[in-house]
């Protein structure tokens, strides 16, 4: 064995690392938690059951569920394409999938406005037919789909690669249809990776702020999600409602974190 490091170095490093985490993460989060419940749980429930807050919950759930369902279907399909099929342009598709992670949420919002805004050709055409995308739920769902697009793919692809193709081939040989094979063989094999990807997508969807802020037009009581509610209440000096809603969002984040740790594919 190497010599044990001197206690001074070891403790010094430990204190420095934990101190950094304390002042960056633990104390700020703890402080907001404490301020939220300063006057007990009553005011928190009251702040979260105002009509505006309730509406924000509804909009958030609506947008997030569309995004999760759409990206789960797309994610599984693209993962199967990337792992089980051969075609030209595969590397390009593989690279493009990750593109949304490198784009600022504000640019995501701008990009959608420039195509689907009412003053643009496509958006104007849709608007004449009574379909509004921007400043409405469809645009907010598209923004959320954009930012969370790669998460299911990146969680499912490695699992599919590891499972291999033997069992699926056996099923085909025995006469199973592609749908039967998928339902009975492939889906059970990738379920944990898929669950991990879905949890990541859900957490990202509930917490999205920048892209939603641009495409929603931030109309109170109409297109306001929970994250927009937090910002708007805070800017209007209603810290208590902002903290209460932030606590609700943080609670979901912590549950997601625990679920992520449970469903994360075991590292060997």
């Amino acid at each position: 064995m190497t010599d044990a490091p001197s206690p001074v170095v070891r403790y010094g490093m430990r204190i420095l690392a934990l101190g950094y985490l304390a002042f960056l993460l633990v104390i700020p989060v703890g402080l907001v938690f404490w301020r939220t419940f300063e006057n007990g749980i009553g005011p928190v429930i009251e702040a979260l059951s105002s009509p505006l807050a309730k509406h924000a919950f509804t909009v958030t759930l609506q947008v997030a569920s569309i995004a999760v369902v759409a990206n789960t279907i797309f994610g599984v399909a693209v993962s199967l394409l990337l792992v089980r099929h051969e075609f030209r342009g595969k590397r390009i598709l593989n690279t493009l999938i990750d593109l949304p992670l490198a784009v600022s949420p504000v640019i995501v919002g701008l990009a959608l406005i420039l195509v689907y805004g009412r003053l643009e050709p496509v958006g104007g055409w849709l608007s004449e037919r009574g379909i509004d995308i921007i400043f409405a739920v469809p645009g907010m769902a598209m923004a959320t789909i954009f930012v969370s697009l790669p998460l299911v793919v990146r969680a499912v692809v490695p699992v599919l690669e590891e499972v291999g193709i033997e069992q699926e081939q056996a099923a085909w040989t025995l006469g199973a249809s592609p749908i039967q094979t998928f339902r009975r063989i492939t889906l059970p094999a990738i379920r944990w990776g898929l669950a991990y990807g879905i949890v990541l997508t859900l957490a990202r969807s509930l917490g999205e702020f920048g892209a939603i802020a641009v495409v929603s037009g931030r109309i109170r009581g109409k297109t306001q999600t929970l994250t927009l509610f937090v910002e708007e209440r805070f800017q209007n000096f209603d810290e208590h409602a902002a903290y209460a809603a932030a606590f609700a969002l943080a609670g979901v984040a912590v549950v997601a974190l625990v679920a992520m740790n449970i469903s994360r594919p075991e590292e060997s």
Partner: protein
Amino acid sequence: MRPGTGLGLGLATLYMSAIVLVPLGAVVWRSRGDGWSGFWHDVTTPEASSTLRLTVGVSLAVAVINAGFGTLIAWVLVRDRFAGKRFVDALIDLPFALPTIVAGLVLLALYGPESPLGVDLAYTRPGVVVALLFVTLPFVVRTVQPVLIELDREMEEAAASLGATRATIFRRIILPNLMPAIAAGTALSFARAISEYGATVLISGNLPFKTQVASVHIFSQIENDNTTGAAAVSTVLLLVSLVVLLSLDLVQRWAVRRD
């Protein structure tokens, strides 16, 4: 081709185009709506060039701090032993799970006007740096940690038996092995920092020339109906991200080949 390849590929391309590719193309297209000279004019207005320089400067600072503290935290999590280590390890992912607006709110509680520490960083550049450090914390830690776990301790023992000091072992053996991972984590945290919006919006206070980072600048240009100007600054930001990610890819290929 297996059955279904064509159909699946077609639908995937349609989905990606409608939501990601055509809109991003529209940003680049709009950025030169008034020709190249218009684009150049839009990104060199005093406000735009100051916001771009500030964003890159602040993000570089964040990347460097992350390289140091991220490596230190990974080291302590792998090589040290103390009570509650698993809890601390799980905590590292919190910034990824927490909505960014909540991150901004939480930091403003400790480092804002009502700070119990008496440290008021609201509407200052250090405040922006702290907000970006919060959201980028996991990158370096999570890239360095697995490499450190896999690192062969026998090399270190051999060096020690040959009389190398701990400092020499760290500098000559451990650090070179960690370098590709540190570089990858640092590049990812830089790319995230230049594009962050939610965490900075509350603490930066949106002061042009002082704390207005690029995404906040783009947002206010959109609000003022200057979509061409917003698109021009966006295009520069997209280019910077692209360069960072491409060079990261090159560094990783080089590291793989060197092994």
